[in-house]
């Protein structure tokens, strides 16, 4: 998408946002309260755009992503906690909507897998090294001139 058309899309989105009742936005489309804006950016990066499943709603140009950003902004302005916003999204779209799912019983394997792999790798290296150190050196000097 060209810069011009991107700007048009952005302008339309901002116009819609302004029209849809979010008043606490400044001229750049950011929340006036910098603390809220920071929280907004953090949350928007952690929510999956479900139309284009590998983009976050912060990055996506899809209309639905725009609506979900509006939803997050409105909830922030309304004083909702981050947890409440994530809950709102997972209630509707499931755990899949979050890029980093919370650590709980059913997600232990996802979070633990890297450590399990690391342990497994260490174990394999340990065994190989111990095995090799027991083998005779193969670069002993040859018995004599050939």
């Amino acid at each position, binding site marked *: 998408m060209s810069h011009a058309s991107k700007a048009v899309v952005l302008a*339309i989105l901002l116009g*819609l946002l302004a*029209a*849809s009742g979010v008043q606490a936005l400044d001229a750049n489309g950011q929340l006036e309260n910098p603390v809220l804006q920071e929280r907004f950016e953090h949350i928007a990066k952690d929510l999956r755009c*479900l*139309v284009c*499943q590998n983009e976050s709603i912060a990055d996506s140009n899809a*209309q*639905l992503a725009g*609506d*979900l950003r509006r*939803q997050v902004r409105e909830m922030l302005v309304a004083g909702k906690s981050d947890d409440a916003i994530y809950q709102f999204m*997972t*209630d*509707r*779209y*499931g755990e*899949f909507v979050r890029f980093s799912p919370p650590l709980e019983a059913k997600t232990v394997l996802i979070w633990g897998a890297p450590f399990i792999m690391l342990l497994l790798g260490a174990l394999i290296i340990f065994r190989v090294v111990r095995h090799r150190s027991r083998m005779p050196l193969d670069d002993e000097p040859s018995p004599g001139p050939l």
Partner: protein
Amino acid sequence: MWKFLLPFVAFVLLVVLFAFGLSPKRDIHALPSPLIGKAAPQFALTEVVDPSRIVSNADLKGQVYVLNVWGTWCVECRVEHPALLAIAQQKVVPIIGIDWSIDHGLDERDKAKNWLQQLGNPYTDVAFDKEGRTVIDWGVTAAPETFLVDGHGKVLYKYISAINDEVWQREFLPRIAAARRAGA
């Protein structure tokens, strides 16, 4: 001994993993809806054709109904439209439409009116979701999506993408019959 067995076991495990992961029956984009088994989100929106009327699923209590999310911008919705018309002719359940104005434009309403006039109207009522809020409440990711709700207002099933007669007979009719047998 285990030195020879281990690669074999690893191989078998990989085969099982791939058989599951690469199975053509498994749709990696399919998302289980967290709404299944839960209360259907409430909505009260104006009717597309007659804006003076309010369409709300609160009025459907005690009835099994189908809710179909569509939009005139949605190509697959045009594909499924004849199937919806055929399903509506069977008069099994009310079909409520949600017209999703994806760009929040009001012209979607006129386009929807034209659509229904030209292609036929399978819907009992069509609610106009101008802001896209009802659509978010129902966890819709892309149109068309079709929900089945029982008489207690509980979501029984969700079908993503264009519905057709085969899906209707296989997925919807048995669930509607079961819900009615259960008195819902």
